[in-house]
């Protein structure tokens, strides 16, 4: 083995390699350091908040102390109030999401897969999209009363548009060259839709899914302000009557935790469904 030859061959770079390695190690240390420092400022804010509450600078009727909020959260969980409220709100959002997602995707398929379907569906969807849907609440109350229906429908309406728009543009954005390939492979229309069009539209549909889940929680929060007698929104409104800012903050934290959770679920789904793309990107 010409070890000497190899050494001579790499001599010009010999000084460079350790330096590169050192730089990489340095970057790793720095990024680890950056990660640990990122906790400092939020913790500081909580500490200042706690101190302000303790010293009376921040009265509890404006904002409860973090320690009070934590204690209240524990109480609400123990008494079963919070789990019940979450269950009610979750059911509204799931029902609304299921109905809205089904409607959005079915309409996108109708509009995306044929010119006639597009002419029938797309103008209406584009017109409805321009409506501020929270402005529909008065009409929804007149039409559906103040029970569960208007709340679920508001979530469904909010969910359907991002899924419709993204799925529709995903279908239309499928590479025409792949459609041509399908023709040379003698794929029928059903096989073309199944093997080329739908999988091709999937990445964009998943973008729509994430958007629609975000807007679903938003719509739920708004909908639950309408005469709710159960759920997170009711819990928050009820707390307002009694100036319980601790309960309000607990409710808000639960909303955001649920939002983050559903977002994580979609990301998990993306990783599984778009594996063909991930391996390419991580190369």
């Amino acid at each position, binding site marked *: 083995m010409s070890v000497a030859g190899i050494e001579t061959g790499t001599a010009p770079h010999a000084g460079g390699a350790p330096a590169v390695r050192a730089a990489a190690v340095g970057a790793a240390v720095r990024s680890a350091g950056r990660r640990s420092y990122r906790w400092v400022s939020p913790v500081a804010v909580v500490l200042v908040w706690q101190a302000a509450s303790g010293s009376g600078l921040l009265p509890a009727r404006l904002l409860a102390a973090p320690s009070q909020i934590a204690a209240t959260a524990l109480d609400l969980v123990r008494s079963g109030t919070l789990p019940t409220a979450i269950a009610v709100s979750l059911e509204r959002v799931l029902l609304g999401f299921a109905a809205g997602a089904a409607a959005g995707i079915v309409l996108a398929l109708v509009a995306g897969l044929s010119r006639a379907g597009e002419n029938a569906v797309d103008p209406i969807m584009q017109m409805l999209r321009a409506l501020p849907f929270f402005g529909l609440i008065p009409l929804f109350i007149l039409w559906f009363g103040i029970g569960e229906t208007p709340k679920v429908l508001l979530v469904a309406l909010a969910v359907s548009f991002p899924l419709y728009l993204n799925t529709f543009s995903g279908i239309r954005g499928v590479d025409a*060259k*792949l459609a041509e*390939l399908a023709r*040379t*492979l003698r794929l029928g229309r059903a096989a073309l839709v199944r093997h080329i069009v739908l999988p091709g539209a999937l990445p964009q549909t998943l973008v729509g899914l994430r958007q629609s889940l975000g807007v679903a929680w938003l719509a739920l929060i708004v909908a639950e302000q309408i005469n709710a007698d159960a759920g997170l929104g009711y819990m928050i409104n009820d707390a307002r009557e009694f100036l319980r800012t601790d309960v309000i903050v607990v409710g808000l934290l639960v909303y955001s935790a649920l939002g983050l959770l559903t977002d994580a679920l979609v990301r998990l789904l993306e990783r599984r469904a778009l594996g*063909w*793309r991930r391996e*390419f990107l991580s190369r």
Partner: protein
Amino acid sequence: MAARVPVPLSDAAPAGGAGRPGEAPAASVRRLTRRFGDRPVLDGLDLTIAPGEFVALLGRSGSGKSTLLRALAGLDDEVEGDIEVDGSVAVAFQEPRLVPWKRVRDNLTLGLDAPGPAARADAALAEVGLTERAGAWPLTLSGGEAQRASLARALVREPRLLLLDEPFSALDALTRITVHRLVLDLWAAHGPAVLLVTHDVDEALALADRVLVLDGGRVAHSWTVTAPRPRHRDHHDLLALRTALLAALGVPPEGTE
């Protein structure tokens, strides 16, 4: 224009004994015309491809090479004239056009209407040397691997006519040489008629039984290449043909300007 045809079309018997007398041609095109707006790109083109014949189609850009190939592939609904293709046609495109969300093996079996598609796909992948990539995602393949997978996908259909639309033009020079050899091996093993659209004169001379030059919307020139394969670039027949071909394509011989 006066077509200079050193070898008449009727004499263009393919090498390798593939053109069996009395057998229907693999493809027969009569008076094919395709207009884009008012401009005819193909203008009454006639072409016959014998069974098992390897035809290379050259022409300046815009001469209608790809238009003719797309017409034969059944991808053009606006051509006028008669196209008769005897049996199945398969296409390998310039970009491999692998379906990115299907693993390599599933790309081969897509639309494959034959018993035991998975086993056929694996056999075809073995032929092009991609056995170990059968389960890979297409986006992780190199350019050469992707093009070989594309060839395997075309051949697994056992076509009577294989259409190759500049499939080697995006490959680097070394990969191209190995894929050329692979194509000749596959052609010898499966015996489809081949129509290769290319802009590479040397590629055409290395591979084809017959080299056509498209000009004015028709087959303006046709040469039969009889040199035995594997062909050496410097074979004296090929050198002469090369000069003639370049002249037909509007490139004068070196040192004559």
